[in-house]
């Protein structure tokens, strides 16, 4: 009902995809023949990737095909279709595929409870924008009866509150300025363009992690535990750590179902380079049917490769400056560098085309980066600073305001009231969730 409220016609897609994977699971459970098992798995992959490919990528491939012909000197008119992208398709197809793959790998017994399975696929808090849940984590939770747990509910409400703050205050306010700058980038100096890129960096983080917090918090109200999707990625000391903290459900999905089967980081240098590029480019492509996302992915691959080849990709696995109030100078520079290269990459993600992104960066990374800002949005800058401080001091929890139980109730309630007050007073102009378009 939740999904159908948007457009009842697309219910058929999610229902069909769910039926296919449910019966693929049943079939996989009944056979030991490797050929039959592989065939069933391929059915699941073809159906899910077929839906995704058609609804999301048909026009992209058609136009890219035509452009390739143009490059060879021939002009053909691509056959474009007016296709509406079903909400959440990138998420639920990956979720159901993970079920089929885990059953195939014997990591999970196939379920015969069709209601539980459909509930797992269409679980409303995470259906439209993740986290992309694994069946091994979420499906068993539908089997057992859940009872109300006070601490879980309080934790969930806190996470919803923080998620709302991130989305409504940080992301929506940052979006207004980022949009103004990106849409008129030719009119601004390098310093303002840099500011625009930073605002987008916080917009996408606030938007996506805010939604994830709301989804996870809502699930906890109902007694469900979803996986953590963001772990303070902008405090990462290198790009490898960033990718362990950003959109964790997607990056672990690709790691487990694509990277490792390809060989992962084993094998020759060429294999490592190849696998890294594949994983990041595919990850970029998952985000949207545009070359900018592919370039964004490739750029992250370029950032990541040196660490992998030098075997330094698993150096920073703990929490930065754990047990301390402030980072060391080295840690600060590491975070600043990682943040800066991430901001550069986000320019591609935000731009409408590669040429626009390159022009934006060209105008940004020149002497005018030292000019005075043309935007003086003190309100949002102040809110961002407060936000970064709260996230910093809360970085050991799953979300920034998780660990408040030690405070007396009147201080806790004052904090909640202050956050709600700020949400009501400083909410930006409503913007659609960015990841809804994926």
């Amino acid at each position, binding site marked *: 009902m939740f999904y159908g409220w948007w457009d009842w016609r697309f219910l058929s897609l999610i229902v069909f995809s769910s039926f296919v994977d449910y019966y693929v699971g049943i079939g996989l459970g009944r056979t030991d023949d490797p050929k039959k098992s592989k065939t069933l798995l391929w059915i699941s992959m073809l159906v899910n990737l077929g839906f995704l490919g058609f609804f999301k990528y048909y026009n992209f491939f058609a136009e890219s095909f035509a452009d390739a012909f143009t490059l060879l000197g021939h002009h053909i008119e691509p056959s474009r279709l007016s296709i509406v992208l079903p909400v959440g398709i990138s998420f639920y197809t990956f979720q159901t595929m993970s079920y089929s793959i885990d059953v195939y790998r014997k990591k999970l017994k196939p379920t015969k409870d069709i209601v539980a399975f459909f509930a797992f696929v269409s679980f409303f808090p995470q259906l439209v924008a993740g986290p992309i849940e694994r069946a091994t984590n979420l499906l068993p939770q539908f089997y057992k009866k859940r009872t*109300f747990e*006070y601490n879980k509910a309080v934790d969930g409400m806190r996470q919803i509150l923080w998620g709302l703050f991130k989305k409504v205050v940080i992301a929506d306010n940052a979006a207004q300025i980022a949009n103004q700058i990106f849409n008129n980038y030719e009119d601004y100096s390098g310093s303002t363009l840099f500011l625009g890129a930073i605002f987008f960096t916080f917009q996408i983080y606030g938007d996506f992690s805010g939604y994830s917090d709301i989804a996870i918090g809502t699930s906890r109200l109902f007694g469900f535990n979803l996986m953590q999707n963001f772990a303070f990625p902008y405090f990462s000391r290198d790009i490898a750590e960033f990718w362990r903290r950003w959109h964790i459900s997607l990056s672990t999905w690709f790691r487990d179902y694509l990277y490792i089967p390809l060989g992962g980081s084993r094998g020759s240098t060429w294999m490592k380079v190849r696998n890294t590029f594949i994983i990041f480019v595919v990850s970029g492509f998952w985000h949207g049917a545009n070359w900018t996302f592919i370039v964004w992915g490739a750029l992250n691959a370029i950032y990541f490769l040196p660490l992998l080849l030098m075997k330094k990709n698993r150096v920073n696995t703990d929490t930065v400056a754990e047990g301390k109030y402030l980072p060391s100078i080295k840690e600060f520079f590491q975070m600043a560098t990682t943040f800066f290269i991430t901001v550069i990459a986000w320019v591609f993600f935000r731009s409408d085309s590669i040429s626009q992104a390159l022009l934006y960066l060209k105008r940004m990374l020149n002497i005018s980066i030292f000019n005075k800002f043309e935007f003086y949005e003190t309100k949002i800058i102040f809110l961002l600073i407060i936000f970064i401080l709260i996230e910093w001091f809360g970085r050991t929890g799953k979300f920034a305001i998780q660990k408040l139980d030690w405070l007396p109730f009147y201080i806790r*309630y*004052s904090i*909640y*009231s*202050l956050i*709600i*007050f700020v949400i009501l*007073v400083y909410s930006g102009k409503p913007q659609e969730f960015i990841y809804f378009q994926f």
Partner: protein
Amino acid sequence: MKLFFRNILFLFLFLFLFTEIVARLFHISTDAPKTYKNERENIRYYPNQEGYWDGGRHKWYINKLGYPGKNIPKSFDNLVLLIGDSYIQNFMNPDSCRQREYLSKLKPNYNFLECSMAGINLLGYFEYSKVLDSLNPVHKIIYVSSSDFLSNITKKSSNVNGYKVNLENKVVNHPKYRGSRLKDIIYNFKFIYYLYRKNIHLFNELNGGKKLSDKNKNIAKNALDISHEDLIQIGDLLSFIIQNYNSGNVLFVFHPNSNKELINLTRKKGFKVFEIKKEKNVNWKTKKDGHWNCQAHKQIANQVSLFLETIDKK
């Protein structure tokens, strides 16, 4: 679960108190001046009021005569009345940015008294100035826009503060008392009132009205498009004003980009008329609501003082 819901309820009470204290401490909600209807059925402000404008950045004042502005002239000799709507009422700027304050410095030979009320229209300006006729003002400067004329005789404005005249039976209908009971109740809770004002467009849509921005766009658009029939009616309205009010000393100061035909008509009817000029790249609007900012008031006062000089020379 009972404990959970009990704590949620307690949180809401705590939140209510917390937000109310913060809202009052930081004046996040604009204080609204108290009004009443006098024996002439005109809406008037209670005298000697003050309050904070949005965010507490400055205060607005109602003086002892019941008009906006802290100061009144020490003498009523050589009196010039400054009459207008919310642009002249000017609560959105500090008191030092009033037309009266600027003009008093530019033309010290005159004593200026502002007499304004938000949302009233052309007839309202004359109804208001009636009570001040006993002070024998030398000039009555009325700041007008094209929409002030239209709203008296057409249904293009739903402004409840607007006066309307039936030109057949010459009866002037006074506006209704402003504000709803709900709004009066909500006003006592500053933070809830703030939320109400912030989301007023949602309330209007829920009540079946058009979005305020659409309404304003319609009014603005209509103000520039005055039909021939409207001009005839406005001409009749101006004749009614000449016959029924003391209008010999009226100087109309038109907002920039007012309807040219309307300005000419007003001039033809014998009124002294001036149109404010605004340079293209200069910003005259306040950030939040589009009224004139301090820079605008200063430049307008300069222009009005030059206009007064030309009147004086004649």
